[in-house]
């Protein structure tokens, strides 16, 4: 009993004591969830297969994947082109993508949104508050 209530403490292993406990709890909870899932299925009979689809019906492919790709391009662009240029480009394209149609008005809105936000952020945070921008 005493062994159970005592943790072996070694300086060089301080860092793995707690993660071990957490991983154990995670595995137990995970196992319980899986068990409950199959238990329910067996109880309900396997005839009723639960339908699960990751994406919702009729989802907007171009907007979802477009914005995801743009999001991941953005940091690369910042490292290459600096904050100002990449943010203007990013804002312009993503606003246009979200509006979803290329019209004169949409172009104008995107451009305004891109330029205004970028300059305000750059000026207020980069210049006035002296925050280190990307």
């Amino acid at each position: 009993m005493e062994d159970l209530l005592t943790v072996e403490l070694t300086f060089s292993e301080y860092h793995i004591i707690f993660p071990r406990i957490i991983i154990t709890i995670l595995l137990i909870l995970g196992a319980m969830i899986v068990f409950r899932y199959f238990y329910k299925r067996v109880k309900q009979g396997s005839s009723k297969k639960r339908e699960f689809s990751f994406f919702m019906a009729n989802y907007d492919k171009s907007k979802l994947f477009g914005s995801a790709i743009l999001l991941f391009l953005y940091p690369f662009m910042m490292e290459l082109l600096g904050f100002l240029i990449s943010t203007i480009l990013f804002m312009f394209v993503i606003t246009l993508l979200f509006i979803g149609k290329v019209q004169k008005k949409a172009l104008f809105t995107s451009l305004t949104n891109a330029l205004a936000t970028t300059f305000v952020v750059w000026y207020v945070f980069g210049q006035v508050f002296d925050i280190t921008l990307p």
Partner: protein
Amino acid sequence: MELIGILSPMSIMLCFLGVLIGIIFGSIPGMTATMAIAIFLPITYALDMIDSIGLLIGLYVGGISGGLVPAILLNIPGTPSSLCTTFDGYPMTQNGQGEKALKVGITASVIGGLLSLTILYFFAPLLASVAIDFSSVEKFLIIIFALTIIASISKGSLLVGMFSGILGVFISLIGTFADNNEMRLIPPGLEDQLVYGFSLLPVLIGLFAIGQMLIEAEEGMKPATHQNIELNKGEKSKFKFRVFKNQIVNLCRSSVLGTFIGILPGVGGSAASITAYSQAKSFSKKPGNFGKGEPEGLIASESANNGLTGGALIPLLSLGIPGDSTTAILIGAFLLQGIEVGPLFIPTNPDLWSGIIFALILANIVMFALMFFSIRYFAKIVYIPKYIIFPIIIVMCAVGSYAINNGVMFDVWTLLLFGLAGYIFMKIGIQIPPFLIGFILGAQCEKYFIDSLKGSGGDLTIFFTNGPVAIGLWVLIIAALAYAIFDNLRSKKNETREAA
């Protein structure tokens, strides 16, 4: 009259300015009160001590309060401590009560702030002395107590909610353990980036803002239902101070709880609103409404996180120990001026001490005035088309993430990574609020666990034998868990009854 004597017109103006800038920082997802103070820290060198106190206190109060705006209107916590504000604030917006929610939140904030500064003024040295008696054992138990909220906010399956919370704890452990500088749990190849683990802010706003944006993009960025409805739908949605009539107990309890958690050095600010929310739910007559737009929950969260401001200043001013990360930066302002903050600070600097109190009173009042009367315009944010507001939010989040650790590109990657994770979580049923609470509290939980064991030589019974406070905390923890399980079963029963 005395106010004018101690605070110069200059410091009053700076306090005003501080509150305004603080509110802006707090309300931008990705910028926090801590950051605002860090930015202005070098500037304070050029000011008199009393003037810089006015400015910094203003920033502190404004920054903590501003977080409620995006939390209520956009479901994005502006600062970590306004996480619980989203639980009921955003549903209120969806029900067409956005403006009311904001006003309730602001009023709760100012009352929390004023109550806590009263406590600060009258009981600072006494409470600080109590705080020192809280050893790592009690702090560990308080964190565990805060973690029990995971059980009570789990929607649907309790098991999945707990899994989400523990997963959050697990993710928070990635990085280096400070005591022995050893890295653990880091995926191979990312040692350089993850040496300090994931930063809280990018994780928080990634999961909320970016995750939500991806969901919206999937839906095609259609205007949300609440964008077409009015902010003040009908008589029921008007804000009246009467809302608070039955909330006095809740208000006081949450403010005091927030203040007390603020006092404990090393127990982070987010724990304040988390515990207060969970207590409000446990004591409420209608716990079933929590999470669906119940002002009671909003009041608890907001009064607690402003209660924190006075609380965190208690150990700072009466012991020289910062109560949270923001006050840790505040201490830098004193040091730049060559003023030592320690146990003798209050008796040796009476002018500065009353200056701080007056600055706090002023900042709270200014905050209330600025926000309460301008909120009608703030609230209009929800009418801005999503295709305009989301790109702006992303850029703000990216700038904030980059700046939070003073310029680290990996934090921007963290933001995106957790944005994607948030999207996937929502799809596969992992619950984001429990996950985040686990993530926020995980590292502290480990620290105090190991610290307790270092003190006891590895003996686990220390958690039960460390005196009456520890026993009392255990009683609270068990009661909270039992209540959560009971509540979960009851609501499940109700659901099946309704379905039948």
